[in-house]
């Protein structure tokens, strides 16, 4: 009922996926969630969530506070184990083997790093953990002008600078799947603009992006698809245009408000 029909892009840079496209519908999805449920004690956080995230598309996971957005992201990352259901990333079942995370770049909501290490050391550590042969993309680090700050211990950096480092790290290993939790929170408008450009550039070069945000208006020009969560259940999943059509609202913010009113009824 809530499952999204697989959606294709005319062009996909992943040739293997393109080959399978017409045979196997789900090849168009970078992430597939099937019947995910999760409870924390008495609280049900996810209720039978079914959805698919399109390859090469920017998908926004939206919803009010405590709707289950972060939990959904953490299930994809393997940080939270679902009580029921399964997760497939790039066609691979997530079952405890960490290898699948090699294609993922993650930007958590809170940017905290070991306080006495320099930014450069933090970057070196993540490179080491990934295997130093992994090619890196420092475009965002350079664009943010972090070169000087990288040599200072993290504890001396401002919140904004840490958040920039946090964002740059997500893009560092040329991930084919970017997972960004509240990416623009705590960034100044310039940095936020740079980040949005990088997100679009990544999507254009074939990467898939999942992001959450509270500031809906900031997202409008980025987002292809919307997954709307309310009380842990998917209330809408599909292209942004369809959301606009169905709610009769042109602006994302109003469309979401429309969804919430319908959900409350």
């Amino acid at each position: 009922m809530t499952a999204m029909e697989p959606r294709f892009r005319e062009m996909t840079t992943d040739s293997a996926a393109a080959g399978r496209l017409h045979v196997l519908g789900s090849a168009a999805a970078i992430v597939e969630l099937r019947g995910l449920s999760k409870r924390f004690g008495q609280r049900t956080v996810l209720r039978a969530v079914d959805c698919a995230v399109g390859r090469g598309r920017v998908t926004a996971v939206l919803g009010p506070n405590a709707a289950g957005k972060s939990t959904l992201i953490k299930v994809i990352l393997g940080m939270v184990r679902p009580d029921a259901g399964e997760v497939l990333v790039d066609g691979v079942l997530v079952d405890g083997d960490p290898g699948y995370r090699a294609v993922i770049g993650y930007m958590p909501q809170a940017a905290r790093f070991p306080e006495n290490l320099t930014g450069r050391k933090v970057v070196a550590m993540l490179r080491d953990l990934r295997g130093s042969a992994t090619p890196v993309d420092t475009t965002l680090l350079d664009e943010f002008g972090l070169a000087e700050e990288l040599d200072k211990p993290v504890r001396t950096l401002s919140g904004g600078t840490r958040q920039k480092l946090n964002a740059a790290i997500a893009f560092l290993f040329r991930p084919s799947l970017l997972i960004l939790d509240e990416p623009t929170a705590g960034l100044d408008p310039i940095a936020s603009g740079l980040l949005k450009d990088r997100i679009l550039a990544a999507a254009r070069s074939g990467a898939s992006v999942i992001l959450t945000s509270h500031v809906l208006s900031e997202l409008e020009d980025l987002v292809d698809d919307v997954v709307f969560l309310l009380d842990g259940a998917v209330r809408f999943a599909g292209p942004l245009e369809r959301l606009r059509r169905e709610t009769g609202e042109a602006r994302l913010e109003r469309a979401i408000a429309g969804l919430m009113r319908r959900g409350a009824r």
Partner: protein
Amino acid sequence: MKTTLKVLKYELEDVRRSRGVLAYSLVLLAVSEGLLRFGGSGPKAMLSLLSVVLLLVPLVSLVFGTMYLYNARDFTELLLAQPVRRGALFRGLYLGLSLPLAAGLVIGVGAPFLWHMSVDESSAGAFLALLGTGVLLTFAFTAVASLTAVTIDDRARGLGAAILAWLLAAVVYDGLILLVVTLFADYPLERPLLGLTLLNPVDLGRVLLLLRFDTAALMGYTGVVFERFFGTIWGTSVAVGALLLWTAVPFVLSLWRFRTKDF
């Protein structure tokens, strides 16, 4: 294993530079230096240091350990999003925390003895026992700190639990033993007391040290009982074994919890 070493490498660097570990080492250095300078001979200073080590090592390992792990939580989540195994990551975290604490202790307590040349052949055993016991206690209480931090998500409650654990082990437990001894003075208490000693790492540390000094009789009931029952060699082995268990059990429990918990 490779992942563990990589995590360890960077965490060692972080903890080594933390002000907490530096302050800890400096305090121990000052105490050790002071005792040697004003308190007289090596063995005498060692005996006084013993009480300091038995109180301070568990406290710092517990409080610094839990605080560090709570502070590292967000970064731990970022590491969990990398293609690494949880078990390897946790082993790296534990070692990266306990090794600098142990090194801080050995340097702080040991250095003054070296530059005062207060260790001779007769007291070398006691000196090594002092440092070794401190290191074992560091590993045991860092493991307890890890267990606290991975089991209790709320940091205020976690810190409270850590301090409570320290109070129990370092202060309350002795009082309880004393109470038992006075209440049941008419009964043979050797064996129950041995059992009670094995249950508390701080007592184990005390026994381990007292077996090396010839003052066991002066320093409390459990030490004497231990020596009578086991003799020095066996007593030492049993106490070391029990302390290692005090490291292994909380470590394995927290490793299991770290591998299965939701972040």
